[in-house]
């Protein structure tokens, strides 16, 4: 793909993002009731205080002007002040985002490491015992709620066996200076192997919870795609050329089978970045998901708005990445 084509594709995202902004803005603007009153909840603020908050948030302006402002602010990363934290919303989100990204990436790695080999073996040894076990396992994984599985893991490995910590991201006294805000990376930068291992022990259970849930679906997709790929003429021809079995399966069939797998993995990653509120809460993981849960309970309007926008943008960008990977894997697709 040429750089020009890439640019064109990126520009095509602009209307999509604009549309998302309109929806997010409208959601907030059209919600019945006085947002200030909702935000303040039962707290005893007087009219003057409410009025000043309203002015601070620009709620006294006409709708169009508010939208333009919102857009301008959003582009520059200014999502207003969190009334609750008394700090800019953007700052709070940025602080929490790395924890979520770190958890998502580790989960993704676990999911891929489990799902792709299992899916391939299940497809190659179709109807074998291993295939059947993997099928049952993935059905369980898909249907079991993540938080429930997470709680089981906590009960077993943390409460019963005391092998792993119950919650949090790193133990007391193990904290390392924040450089990238990815604790695993920061621990390595600080040269603290003990901190690294401690962080690894903390991330293990939530990442396994999310990763296995994702692996269940990914494995199904990989298996189905592999079964289909293995039945293709090009696999027979590859074998007829005298290639090794490993190469026929691992290159000729797998490269084609990965196309759907990558697409599903990207979409799943998007929903992990956005949808792991419950798992983050169960494991006391200080990420975006838990922040949003808190924000919803405290009626923190600007924060919820910013988070929703962020989720939507992440989702769109991940789909874009999936398209890119798709075109790499499948030369017939020109972006």
């Amino acid at each position: 793909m040429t750089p020009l084509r890439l640019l064109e594709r990126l520009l095509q995202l602009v209307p999509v993002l604009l549309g998302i902004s309109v929806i997010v803005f409208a959601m907030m603007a059209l919600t019945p009731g006085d947002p200030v009153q909702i935000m303040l909840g039962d707290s005893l603020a007087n009219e003057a205080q409410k009025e000043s908050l309203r002015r601070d948030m620009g709620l006294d302006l006409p709708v169009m002007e508010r939208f333009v402002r919102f857009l301008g602010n959003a582009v520059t990363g200014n999502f207003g002040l969190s009334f609750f934290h008394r700090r800019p919303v953007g700052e709070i989100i940025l602080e929490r985002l790395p924890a979520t990204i770190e958890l998502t990436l580790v989960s993704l790695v676990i999911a891929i490491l489990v799902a792709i080999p299992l899916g391939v073996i299940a497809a190659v040894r179709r109807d074998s015992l291993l295939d059947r076990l993997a099928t049952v396992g993935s059905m369980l994984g898909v249907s079991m709620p993540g938080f429930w599985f997470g709680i089981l893991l906590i009960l077993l490995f943390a409460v019963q066996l005391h092998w792993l910590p119950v919650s949090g991201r790193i133990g007391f006294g193990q904290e390392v200076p924040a450089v990238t805000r990815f604790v695993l990376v920061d621990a390595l930068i600080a040269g603290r192997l003990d901190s690294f291992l401690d962080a690894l022990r903390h991330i293990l259970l939530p990442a396994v919870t999310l990763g296995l849930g994702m692996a269940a679906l990914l494995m199904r997709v990989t298996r189905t795609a592999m079964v289909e790929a293995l039945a293709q003429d090009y696999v027979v021809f590859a074998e007829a050329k005298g290639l090794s079995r490993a190469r026929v399966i691992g290159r000729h069939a797998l490269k084609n089978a990965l196309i759907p797998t990558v697409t599903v993995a990207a979409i799943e990653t998007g929903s992990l970045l956005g949808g792991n509120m419950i798992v983050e809460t169960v494991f006391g993981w200080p990420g975006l998901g838990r922040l949003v849960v808190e924000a919803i309970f405290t009626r923190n309007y600007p924060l919820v708005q910013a988070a929703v926008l962020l989720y939507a943008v992440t989702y769109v960008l991940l789909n874009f990445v999936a398209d890119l990977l798709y075109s790499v894997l499948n030369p017939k697709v020109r972006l």
Partner: protein
Amino acid sequence: MNASLLSIRGLRTSFPTRRGLVQAVDGVDLDVRPGECLGVVGESGSGKSVTFLSVLGLVRPPGRVEADAIGFLGRDLSRLSPSEMRAVRGREIAVTMQDALTALNPSFTVETQIVETIEAHDPSVGRKAARTRAIEMLRLVGIPDAERRLSAYPHQFSGGMRQRVMVAIALACRPKLLIADEPTTALDVTIQSQVLDLIDDMRATLGMSVVLITHDLGIVAERCERVAVMYAGQVVETGPTRQVVETPVHPYTRGLLRSMPRLSHLDAPLLPIDGQVPDPTRLPEGCRFQPRCPQAIEECLQPIRLRPVSPARAARCVLAGAEP
């Protein structure tokens, strides 16, 4: 006569299916001699492709292959280990498949697909040498601008060029035998003869033998020294092409000839063969063609083997011995 390159004896291949056991190949005996072109003709489903997939050990479970022997250069292919078999495939016996579009992997460049074949059989060639050979092969099969086309993907070629690419891959290791499975069915007539010419040229250049699988007796008559006619998983007639075409022995061969415009030397009008190809899960007793055969007699219900007609010819028919 015994100096066959490939000599198949008693090949039987079956597939269990939901509707019953499909006996796709049922006791095939075939010989391919050094340097010759053997035509294998038969209607769709007669077992042409499966016969040669079986020879190369490419039938996958639950398909089952049995053979008395598959002789090839002093070895019995039916008794080779998987890795010994791999060394034969692509190196000594190469294949081109019916449809180049589906046989070439859409996700890899032509370069990758040729080079990997060369490397599989000669791990010591460098990348560069393998690439040079790949370019050489593309030139040899008549692909213009070979060096540049090397980095193209299969879908970027026309149908005829794609077929040439597949021939280039098949011949990259200079095999002794090429099995060309309907190399031209997917192509239009002018391109057809170009591709067949190419295979002929290659046969002469590399001194290899060719098995040309086709529906078209006309193509066989033009290009093959010998022919084997298949029906319902069996060889029903075999011999030098001219003799078989001029004086067919088996009623099926006769019917096949009569249904072909270019070859109907008999002054009879073009006639399709009456009846239908038998259901592969419920094959008729005795001669497989007997329910459709205009000359069927009581004896045809008994099992029958290929019978010699003359030193060079054989037919699976009770009439075979009775030929003048």
